[in-house]
Structures are given as C-alpha cells and as structure tokens.
C-alpha cells in the first residue's frame, strides 16, 4: 500500500495545477497526516541547511587543528622564510606565497583586458543572433577541467613558448629583467598564461552581467548627446558598471589563487623566488598537490596544512569582497561615479 503518490503527467499546464491536485486531493490530505510529519520534515530540511554551516565549520576546524604543530613551531615567520627543507624540518612558505601572487597577477593582467573586451563586444556590439552562442562558447571555457588545460599546456603551449614567444620576449624585452634566463617553456610565464585562459570566462560573464544591469536609458541618453558608440560604452556603461567589473576581476583573482592542477603541471615546481618570469616557481596550491600524499613526518604535513589554511583564508576574503562589489551593481543601485 504505502503513501499514495502523485503520478500525473509531468508538465503541469496552467490552471491544471488546481484541477490536477483536486482529483488527488483526497489522497494528499490523508497522506500528510498531522503536524508531526510537518515538524519532522522541517527539522530534516533544517538539518540539511545546517550541514552547509557544518561543512564550512569543519573545514576551518580541520585546517586549524592540523596546522597547529607548524604554527607553534614557526609562528608568523612561517610566511616570511624562504627555506623549504623537509629533510631538516625547516619550513618557510614565502616562495609559495610569492609564486601564487605573481602567477595570479600575471593571469589577471592578461585576462582582464580580454575578458572586458569580450563582454563589451557581446553586450554592446555583436548582432543579436550572435550574442547567445558567443556567450555560451566563452562560458564553455569554464567547463573544461583544470587537468585538461594542464595536459594541453604541457604538450602545446609550453613548446610554443619555448620556440617562439620566449626567445622573442628575451630579445626585445630582456632588458627589463623579467624575461631573461634559459627559455625552458615551463615556468611562471606558462602558469600565468594558462591561468589567464581559465579566468577569462569568469571575469567576462560577471562583466556581462553587470553591463546588462546598466539601464538602457543611460545608453540612449549618451547616444542622444551625439556620442560615438565607444564614448557611449565608456561613459554610459563601463563607468556605471565599474564596481561590478572590479568584483568580477576579484572573483577571477579568487579562482586564480586556488587553481591547482594546470598550474602544477606547468610552473616547474621549484621553491625559489626569481625575478625572471621564465624561471620555474611554485604556488601554495601546487605544493599541497605535489607533496601532501608523500609528506613524511608530522611537522611536514602540518606545514602543508598551514599553507592550505592561509590559502583558504585569502580566497574566502577575496570572494566575499568580490560578491559585495557585484551586488552593489546588480542590486539596482549602480555605483555612480562623480569623476
């Protein structure tokens, strides 16, 4: 027997909702017997909701307790020392912090102009029939898993860098000191470029979202004053969407900071701080990925978890700031500039 189930046809057409329910109403009334079932259901759903809180609590708890050993051994100095020597139990995370920051900033420098350009084209310039498919295509970039980007970078991007881009950069921009040393292909530059490819879809989709939120009248008003299309986009759209675009950029930063696999596969994984972008580096996420499962010794493991804790805190703060910025635009209160 069991509780009677609603087995009507899937699509519920207009007004049919009531009719449909009416035919089964007898069953449904009896099925939900009493307040006790209601209360039980409420608590079950509440428990599911609380599980979200519990998961974040668990993450924080795990990271803090498992890293306490390293925290007590090194304190704040952990983040300012550049020696990473598991054999002698000496751990300093500076090279990883440096690698994470440099690769992420490099990625943003490449990705942001491209992403904003794509967003501007899709929302303001593209013919209507092209918009949807173009937006879907750029979003498809976000669906490709990190490990596939890594695979592609190892066998396609890195050889290209080694043979063409790096010699060219060394020849014309070598004097800056950023592009010197042997062109291995693998290194900080490769990591920055592959990260840029992965960050573009996020930044461009948020930018599109906030640009769409700018009222149409803004555009019409500026155009009516005789502005060219670019002047309209600059003064009417971009200026109003500024805070939201910044939010998108910071969201991209959050993604870049925590990105693991593709970076691990091409950055070279050497805990050194070098000025040249050709040199191999290491990031916080990569060191965990590479060394966690073979870390022998409690202090070693604890040091890796502490790197994870730092990464966690930074990405959380970055993401919250980004969310707030995006909200200021999409929540109907465009952050107007008075510049």
């Amino acid at each position: 027997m069991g509780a009677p189930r609603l087995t009507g046809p899937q699509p519920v057409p207009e007004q049919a909702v009531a009719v449909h329910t009416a035919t089964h109403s007898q069953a449904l009334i009896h099925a939900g017997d009493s307040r006790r079932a209601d209360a039980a259901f409420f608590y079950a759903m509440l428990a599911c909701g609380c599980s979200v809180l519990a998961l974040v609590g668990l993450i924080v708890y795990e990271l803090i307790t498992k890293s306490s050993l390293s925290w007590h051994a090194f304190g704040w100095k952990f983040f300012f020392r550049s020696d990473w020597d598991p054999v002698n139990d000496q751990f300093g995370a500076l090279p990883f912090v440096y690698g994470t920051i440099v690769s992420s900033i490099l990625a943003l420098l490449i990705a942001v102009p491209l992403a904003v350009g794509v967003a501007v084209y899709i929302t303001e310039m593209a013919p209507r029939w092209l918009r949807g498919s173009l937006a879907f295509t750029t979003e498809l970039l976000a669906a490709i898993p990190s490990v596939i980007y890594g695979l592609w970078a190892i066998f396609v991007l890195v050889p290209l860098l080694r043979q063409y881009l790096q010699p060219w950069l060394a020849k014309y921009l070598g004097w800056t000191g950023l592009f010197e040393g042997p062109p291995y292909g693998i290194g900080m530059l490769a990591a920055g470029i592959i990260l840029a490819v992965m960050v573009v879809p996020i930044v461009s989709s948020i930018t599109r979202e906030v640009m769409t939120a700018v009222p149409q009248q803004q555009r019409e008003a500026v155009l009516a004053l005789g502005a060219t299309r670019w002047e309209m986009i600059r003064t009417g759209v971009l200026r109003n969407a500024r805070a939201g675009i910044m939010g998108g950029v910071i969201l991209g930063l959050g993604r870049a900071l925590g990105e693991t696999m593709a970076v691990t596969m091409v950055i070279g994984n050497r805990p050194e701080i070098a000025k040249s972008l050709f040199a191999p580096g290491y990031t916080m996420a990569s060191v965990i990925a590479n060394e966690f499962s073979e870390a022998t010794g409690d202090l070693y493991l604890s040091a890796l978890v502490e790197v994870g804790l730092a990464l966690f805190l930074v990405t959380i703060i970055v993401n919250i700031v980004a969310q707030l910025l995006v909200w200021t635009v999409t929540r109907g209160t465009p952050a107007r500039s008075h510049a």
Partner: protein
Amino acid sequence: MPEKTMLPADFSDAPISLWRRGLNFLVSAAAIGAVVVVLMPLGAVFGYLIYKGIGSINWAFLTQIPKPPGEAGGGMANAIAGSVYILLIASSMGVPLGIGAGIYLSEYGRGTRFGNLIRFTADVLNGVPSIIVGIVAYGLVVLTQGHFSALAGGVALAIMMVPTITRTTEEMLLLVPQAVREAAYGLGVSRWRTTLSITLRTATSGVITGVMLAFARVAGETAPLLFTAFGNQYWNWKLEQPTAALSLQIFTYAISPFDEWHRQAWAGALILIVLIVTSVGAVRLVANRGMLKGAN
C-alpha cells in the same frame, strides 16, 4: 511616431571629428580582437583533444586496465569506472543534502537572518579551492580509516557539490508562484506534502539542471582526489580501497616520461570532456524547455 520636422534640431549629419571616429573604430576592432584571442585557446584545446585523442580510443582502451610503464597497449577501463563510482558516491551524499538545504532556504528561511547566514555560507563554500576540500576529506576520512579510499574521494566531491545544488534548488523553488502552494494548502494538503509533491515537483527540471551543473563541475576535478581516492592501477569496487579516476589517470600519464602514456592521456581527456560537455548540453536542453513546466 513623431515626424522628423517635429524634432527640435537635427544633428544627424553633423560631422564627428576624425579622432573620435578613429578611436571608435580602434576600440571596436580591439573588442573583436579580444573575442578572437579568447576563442583561440578554446578551439585549440578541443582541436587537439580530438586530433590526439580520437586515434587512441579503441576497444582495448575502453576495456583494459593499464599496462606497466613502457609497455604498449592497456587502457583506462578501471579509471572510467572509478570516476563513475566516485561520482555516484558523491551524488548519493551531495544531492540530497544540497536539495534539502535549498528547500530549507526557499520554504522556511526566506528573509530570515538564519536563512541569510546559510545562503552566505553556501557562497563561501562555493569559493573554497578544491585542493583545500581534499585536505579536509583527507583529515575526515583517510586519517580515520587509515588509508586512501573511494569513500574519501566521494566525500570530497560531495562537499563541492552541495553549495551549487543548494543555490540552484533555492532559486528554482523561489520561481514557483506562491499561489500554487496556497492552492495546495487550501485543499488541506499538509506543508511537507505540498513542498515535495507540488513545489519541488513543479520545479523538477530546474532542480535537475542544478544537479547536472554540479555534476559537470566536479566530474573533472583532480586536486581533491589526489590524496583521497589516490588512484589505482587495478580494478576496485570496495568503498574503503584506493580507486582510480579518469582525471587522476590523465594527470599521472601527462607528467610521465612515456610517449605511450601521453597518447593515452589525450584519449582519457577526450572521454572526460565528452562526458562533461554531454551533461552541460543536457542542461541546456532541459533549460531551454523552460525552468518551470507550465506553472506560471
């Protein structure tokens, strides 16, 4: 339509300076250039996947387990099965939790401070780097069990699925008009029954979209599996044993020095991307049929 003569003044053929027109042209060209540059890696990645991968997909690849390094032949059958296995474990935990939390947010937590806290926390959880989730699953499952396991991998991926499913479920349920719920209450249907049989039922395709998105998102995840599922060169169906996964196998093969393994890495990547694009495509199909089937 006002007649043209009724406009106060007509500046439409007033000259725009060469500089302004030139700048407009340059910026338009730059935007198109950006689109081309962004589409290039997309084309290159898919092109290479197909070009390098398709030749290596054969019956042996799909049915055999890996051969020792350096030996030709062998396949990724255990990794493909392992991925599906881990994803099933993850879904069995993540989907009910996520949908339940979504129901709580939309049906009970609307506008309450506690609801907002959960919503905010879900967004925070969504931004946690996947490698961190791996550390947590390691601490929770691997350390207590004493070894790497399929269960640990499933827990890690489940944690990553929850926030996505929660937020999409909430959004889809909020789209169901209040009148539909009231109609059910008016007929004397209890609240829980209304939620499950009327509200959730109406939003089914939207909720499924969210689940598929979460699924596609974690299907290619590698970092959280590195020290949870760990990988395995052989078959494994035990919950508490290390298990192979497609993404892990691609990683191991890609950084190995063997050409034969590189070849198989491409083939594995092609299979993985087909899996993901199919589920994203299915989402588009479902989404195009309307989030809410006729309930508006």
